[in-house]
């Protein structure tokens, strides 16, 4: 997929809401780096795609308790809304990226 489609300033089009089932994940690349998109009860969130603990693709993990992403490798977890590390072995928070949805299209502004 190609998401080089810049809307305005640094908001980048990364997909559509229809790409992500409810309580599911969707993996995209932004600036060559993996980003994981989430659909939590219709609301879209985005975090770095790689776990802060090990080399694991969070998009393969599962959304649990409606707001946590559980790493597919070691079962550490993060709060999707804040990036906060909530379960071992994860101790370093996950970086979140601001997103906005316009007419079903998801735009992301990469966080530093």
């Amino acid at each position: 997929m190609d998401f080089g489609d810049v809307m305005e300033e640094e908001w980048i089009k990364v997909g559509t809401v229809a790409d992500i089932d409810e309580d599911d994940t969707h993996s995209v690349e932004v600036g060559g780096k993996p980003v994981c998109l989430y659909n939590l009860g219709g609301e879209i969130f985005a975090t770095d795609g790689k776990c802060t603990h090990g080399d694991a693709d969070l998009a393969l993990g599962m959304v649990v308790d409606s707001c946590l992403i559980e790493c597919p490798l070691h079962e550490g977890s993060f709060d999707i809304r804040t990036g906060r590390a909530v379960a071992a072995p994860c101790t370093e928070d996950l970086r979140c990226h601001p997103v906005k949805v316009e007419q079903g299209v998801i735009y992301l502004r990469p966080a530093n």
Partner: protein
Amino acid sequence: MHVVIVGAGQAGAWVARSLRENGFEGEVTLLGREASAPYERPPLSKGVLSGTEDHPPVLLTTQQCDALRVGFRPNTEVVSIDRARREVRCESGETVAYDRLVLTTGGRPRRLACAGTELPGVHTLRTIEDSRAIATLLQPGKRLLIVGGGWIGLEIAATARKKQVDVMVLEAGPRLCARSVPPLISTALQGWHAKAGVDVRLSATVSSIEKGTRRDLRASLPWGAEEFDAVVVGIGLALDTGLAEACGLEVHDGIVVDHQGRTSDPKIYAAGDVASRPCSWAGGRLRLESWANAQNQAIAVGKTLAGGEAAYDDIPWFWSDQYDKNLQVLGIPSNQLEGVMRGSVAEGSFTLFQTFDGKLRSVIAVNAPRDIKVAKRWLREGTCPPAAVLADRSVRLDKL
């Protein structure tokens, strides 16, 4: 209150972390034999060995030790425990007094019982130093003999093949990883390694190792002598239960502990590879050499010592990464149980669900980590969808 932890691996470090996370205010001392700060061992046979990871994840950095007020002492070998005086003696002669003692001593690689294992070029893998020493040998065209077709041996084989090393794996038993997975999985493992060019020899052992002429080492094998540049022995762990035995704690295939990690002396606890714990999923005692067990049992011990309530009875779970395959095992697989396959070995991604009396007993998933998460929930709830549903890949199991 002073908690002294002997053994600074995965379990030891997590006991220390968990003590503080659960509000323990007393003194915490962590004594480690190795020179490094506590680190995670799984990458030693993968990323660290291949060079893609410089260092495995550190469990307690110097800054974290300061912040958590953990007195970490590397290069410290404990040689005895005096239960009456409540102190441990170090190799240096120094003694350290404890109110509560935690043994997270793990073990050391089991040695091969044949001539020549002391020769340079014959390795085992447990520490970061071991991993780095083996890594220097993994160069294209080198020839490596791996003794032991278990998880460590197979992960090293996969890493070595990535480095274009010529690899032979010798397994004494009739199939790979026979202790932990059913024959179907052993066959799949063998297929992946054969496809990657590994020469897997079953029911075969090495009878002696000596200096070679064309390559550094010559190994006597059932069909004759062959030469190799290096030998790695991965035939299991010899538990470090010596301290516990010498001071009279109950030891039976590991240090015997209860759900809180308490040994037969209520002031002494144990966790990790070295501890034998009650496990309802195994219908008896279980000693597990796995990353998750070392972490989570240690967390329970830390919580208990901090005055919290914990009863460790996690479902056994481990994984292995080889080539492009992530294999995860949940529960205790059996050679006898019925199995339902979701996907197939040929597809490269599958899950084998084993059931008994309509209840789920174990799950083995290859490149299907979500199936493990869902199955963990079913195991806890004592439920399981019908076989036809499990086998149907068009059904999303997490939506059931």
